């Protein structure tokens, strides 16, 4: 809507600013808390301006970790999270793009059956199948390993479905023209389909990276070794129950660190992400 009504403009800005404040305030508190000492945090009320312990807190979590909860350094956890998120995102995209290629471009017996089998798994999120999956992973001896962390989460009905829908919008004549040009199926896939899917791939990468990074329940179950903790689990382990005093300044610093990579991925890939969701270049 293009309208020239100053009061409406003012009002909409006010509403937007209010929304931003609601979202941003907790983040700000987290940041402030991560720069204070433990004594300042437990004071009531907690100070609302950043304190002087920024470097101290952050270097402690990165290199040494919390002394009272889990003692693993957050640097290692960040690396674990990064590996997990990257492997899941790349793995999901690779497997689902090949699966949709097969489903859309090849005629084979039970083709639709297989597609619906994949599609039905959409209804079963990780949490529903977590116990049998845990059993399988543990029997295969994959607890406390990167394979165990990532492999069970790689299969993706959502991505397969998205690629299938995208491939179906590509005119058949393109495949036929490639056939007449002499390109075999794999050549067509690499030379035509992959470049055309690049924006969709980028959009999916953003979504799946964040999905992988934010995994909580699964890593919580299968990692018992501190060296395999992900950042999200690290935060959980730092919050000690019972009598011990949680080092909130370190928890908050870890939370800030855990926030960074997904935010970076979104900011850096924003252009591609939006393109992939809206653009149809055919």
């Amino acid at each position, binding site marked *: 809507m293009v309208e020239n009504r100053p009061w409406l403009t003012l009002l909409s800005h006010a509403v937007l600013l209010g929304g931003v404040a609601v979202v941003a305030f907790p983040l700000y508190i987290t940041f402030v808390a991560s720069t204070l000492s433990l004594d300042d945090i437990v004071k009531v009320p907690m100070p609302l301006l950043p304190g002087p312990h920024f470097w101290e807190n952050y270097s402690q979590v990165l290199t040494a970790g919390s002394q009272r909860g889990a003692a693993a350094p957050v640097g290692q956890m960040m690396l674990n999270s990064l590996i997990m998120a990257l492997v899941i995102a790349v793995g999901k995209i690779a497997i689902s793009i090949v699966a949709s290629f097969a489903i859309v471009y090849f005629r084979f017996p039970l083709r639709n059956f297989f597609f619906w089998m994949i599609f039905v798994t959409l209804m079963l999120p990780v949490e529903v199948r977590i116990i049998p999956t845990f059993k399988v992973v543990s029997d295969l001896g994959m607890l406390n390993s990167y394979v165990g962390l990532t492999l069970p989460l790689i299969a993706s009905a959502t991505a397969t479905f998205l690629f299938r829908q995208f491939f179906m919008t590509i*005119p058949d*004549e*393109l495949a*036929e*023209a*490639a*056939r*007449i*040009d*002499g*390109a075999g199926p794999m*050549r067509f896939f690499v*030379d*035509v389909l992959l*470049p*055309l899917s690049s924006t969709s791939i980028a959009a999916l990468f953003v979504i799946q990276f964040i999905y992988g990074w934010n995994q909580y329940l699964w890593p919580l179950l299968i990692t018992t070794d501190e060296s395999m903790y992900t950042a999200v689990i690290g935060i959980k382990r730092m919050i000690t129950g019972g009598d011990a005093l949680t080092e909130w300044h370190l928890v908050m610093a870890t939370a800030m660190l855990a926030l960074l990579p997904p935010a970076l991925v979104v900011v850096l890939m924003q252009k591609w992400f939006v393109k992939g969701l809206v653009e149809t*270049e*055919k």
Partner: protein
Amino acid sequence: MAQISFRGVRKSYGALQVIHGVSAEVADGEFVVIVGPSGCGKSTLLRMVAGLETISAGEISIGGRVVNRLEPKDRDIAMVFQNYALYPHMTVYDNMAYGLKIRGLAKADIDARVKRAAEILELGSFLERRPRQLSGGQRQRVAMGRAIVREPAAFLFDEPLSNLDAKLRVQMRAELQALHRRLGTTSLYVTHDQVEAMTLAHRMIVMNAGRAEQIGAPLEVYATPATTFVAGFIGSPPMNLIPAQRGGREVLLGVRPEHLEPCAAGDAMLTVDIDLVEPLGSDTLVYGHLAAASGAGARVAVRLHESVDARTGRLSVRYDPAKVHYFDPQSGQRIAT
């Protein structure tokens, strides 16, 4: 360079047969147009030549070689699609070069061929552009360029001008003719547009419901349509078909609108009650229905070379008996005169 021959070609999807045995020959260097209404199987026939559809029965050969079991790439043909089917992410140059690269031609050779095609089609200044930066006519030319660089035995065109606006279509039609004169490559061209068929074809195959109704040179088909379908499909407005008696049997009398001429009421062979008059400037089209005698009520179109004032009323017309056609009302076949 090659001839294409169809021998009893059939196509069925399960129990449904869509092409019922087409036999035809396309001579080396000939431009043959397959024309028919939508759903008549003309595109399917072309796609069978290209190898994009399997041949259910019969045989298609290109250059004397039966191609029934050959992959499209081994048939030595190039195809131009209705929606151009250009690779959207490649430049014009790469679109044309792609097939050659796959065939493993030397870079210098590819470059020479693409440059030459670009020159023929006046695409020289667009080589680095993407398809979406081109107009419809330019995209169509790139699609032709992609066919030309391959130097195939035959070109296949699947309604290549249907996505263009009327003015551009006329222009591209002329370019296609010039291109064919220059290259002399055997061409098979599918269209539903009878004007394209009449103007481009050396010979045309008129198809209806999976059968080749008539094969012949455009003017020959126009002058002596083999069936009532052809009579009605080729020519605009279509030939008038009037129920009549001839030699004691029921026939359909066919007379083209331009072969009816106005006359005095006393000489009238047909009297038309006018329903609608369309002045086109050069001609006037009069639509109406027969007033009396046998075939009363049959719809009739008349093409007059002068304008008429009447919007309604009666028109008396006569025709030259040498210029009419007779068809069997049941089979629709032409009755020899």
